């Protein structure tokens, strides 16, 4: 069953070659080779990213934007080049539509606070799905707590799929925003964005898409999607921690108030008055994550150096193999089985709590996540307190899937 895919993969994307770029993957834990399957929480970083940051820090570092001197010009150039790299990655139209943030979470908070905050009144509605990550829930809860906004929840089907019609049906005269994940970090479900966004726009409702997972596994074209806001985070994209980015349509960003206040985001400050710079600077108060921007650009370059479809095919092969193996086990139940889903595999195990299972897998070298995955409403929807989650990255191999399965059997022996 795996013979044929293996041939295709060898022709286009070789995970074993890619593994060599990730120093951490050759380490052992408890004397066992590390099998890192916690990629949806955070991905490991390739040599190329670490080296780019190191070279920058040792050769061109200074603060950006306000300096006349050589290093400041060099650093500013690198920082703005990173912005251009993100723009190209998302196919945004303009560079000033890319705002660097500290991560995906801050990007969503920025939109909730600076875009929707001043526009929302008691009783206005925000449409969310039950599979959102807390980072795409709590910022909207703030608007509920502080302005009386109402959260309208779209359920998912039992297989974890999200129906575009259901989203359209939830949009009413009070709706002010639709905020949805591109890919669920628990189910792997890929949201039918085209249809949902087109629908929302017929009512004039802007759509924010949380691409923290989606952008890692799917090709993103914000113009083609016609999405209003799109959010990414560096550390899941094989990049550094401490950085993410918000794409926002120029016209929307221009109409937004600042988020943080401080250096670099002002036009003028006096004792009685302050005026603000244009986007994206308006939203980048203080010294930005400069070294991290170089790392993020290197990560995007790294990912883009591969045939992305071949990478996706490889990840789906991993998923297919793991899924098939789990389906054979009558004591395992997969949560999230919709066709076309991304390479994230959550499951329950009869008689074994996720935490106990994860502890045992860990001693086999297998790193998986156990818990609610920052998606408590989704856990509630499926009536579980927690799941075990294996999530795949480009550097995982079919052999590693087999190690996972063997470790599962071992856990069953200990606990079952």
């Amino acid at each position: 069953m795996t013979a044929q895919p293996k041939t295709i993969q060898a022709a286009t994307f070789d995970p074993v070659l890619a593994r060599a770029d990730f120093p951490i993957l050759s380490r052992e834990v408890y004397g066992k080779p590390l099998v890192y399957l916690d990629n949806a929480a955070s991905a490991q970083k390739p040599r190329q990213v670490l080296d780019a940051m190191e070279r920058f820090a040792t050769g061109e570092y200074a603060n950006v934007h306000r300096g006349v001197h050589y290093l400041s010009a060099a650093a500013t150039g690198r920082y703005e080049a990173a912005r251009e790299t993100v723009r190209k990655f998302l196919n945004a139209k303009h560079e000033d539509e890319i705002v660097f943030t500290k991560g995906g979470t801050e990007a969503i908070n920025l939109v909730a606070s600076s875009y929707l905050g001043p526009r929302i009144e008691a009783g206005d509605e925000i449409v969310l799905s039950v599979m959102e990550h807390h980072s795409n829930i709590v910022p909207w809860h703030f608007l509920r707590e502080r302005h009386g906004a109402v959260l309208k929840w779209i359920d998912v089907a039992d297989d974890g799929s999200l129906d575009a019609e259901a989203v359209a049906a939830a949009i009413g005269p009070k709706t002010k925003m639709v905020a949805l994940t591109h890919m669920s970090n628990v189910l792997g479900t890929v949201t039918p964005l085209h249809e949902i966004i087109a629908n929302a726009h017929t009512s004039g409702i802007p759509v924010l898409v949380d691409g923290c997972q989606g952008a890692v596994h799917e090709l993103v074209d914000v113009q083609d999607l016609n999405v209003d806001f799109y959010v990414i985070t560096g550390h899941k994209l094989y990049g550094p921690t401490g950085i993410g980015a918000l794409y926002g349509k120029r016209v929307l960003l221009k109409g937004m108030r600042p988020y943080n206040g401080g250096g670099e985001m002002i036009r003028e400050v006096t004792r009685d008055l302050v005026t603000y710079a244009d986007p994206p600077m308006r939203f980048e108060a203080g010294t930005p994550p400069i070294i991290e921007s170089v790392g993020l650009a290197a990560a995007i370059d790294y990912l883009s150096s591969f045939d992305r479809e071949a990478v996706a095919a490889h990840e789906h092969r991993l998923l297919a193999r793991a899924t098939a193996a789990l389906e054979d086990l009558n004591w395992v139940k997969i949560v999230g089985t919709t066709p076309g889903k991304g390479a994230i595999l959550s499951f329950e195990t009869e008689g074994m709590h996720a935490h106990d299972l994860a502890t045992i897998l860990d001693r086999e070298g297998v790193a998986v996540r156990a818990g609610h995955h920052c998606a408590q409403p989704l856990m509630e929807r499926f009536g579980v307190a927690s799941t075990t989650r294996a999530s795949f990255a480009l550097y995982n191999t079919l052999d590693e899937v087999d190690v996972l399965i063997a470790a599962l059997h071992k856990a069953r022996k200990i606990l079952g």
Partner: protein
Amino acid sequence: MMDESLRELYQEVILDHSRHPRHFGVLADANHVGEGHNPLCGDRVKVYLHVGAGDKIDDISFEGKGCAISQASASMMTDLVKGRSIAEAEKLMGGFLHLVKGEDASAIGADDREHLDVMAGVQAFPMRVKCATLAWHTMKSALEGGNPAKSE
């Protein structure tokens, strides 16, 4: 070939407690109830106590779902504190917290130690300490009539 520390952690006694927890369920005449929540995994536990004359814990029970460690720990706790005074229960809790963190647990008397020693395996799993202590924290918050407990 099984990892030695795993064998320590998942001893038969622990698995037995977790599969057949003692004093499981609602305590109808409870006069202290506490609710605990482990934000790391979403597990919840509810502890019911009936405290009688002389601050004695006449009866105790617990309810909830959780990992083997947290269930076993809750079950053993109910076994151990039932019939004791609040002060004794709290002293025992102090010792237990030290024990699972691998600190000096000499506050635990020899008899109790014999029962609790099976929990010492948690020492090798720092990420699981919160699982082991959740029920205890919840009992404490129930006795204090305070806010929902978290294990820390």
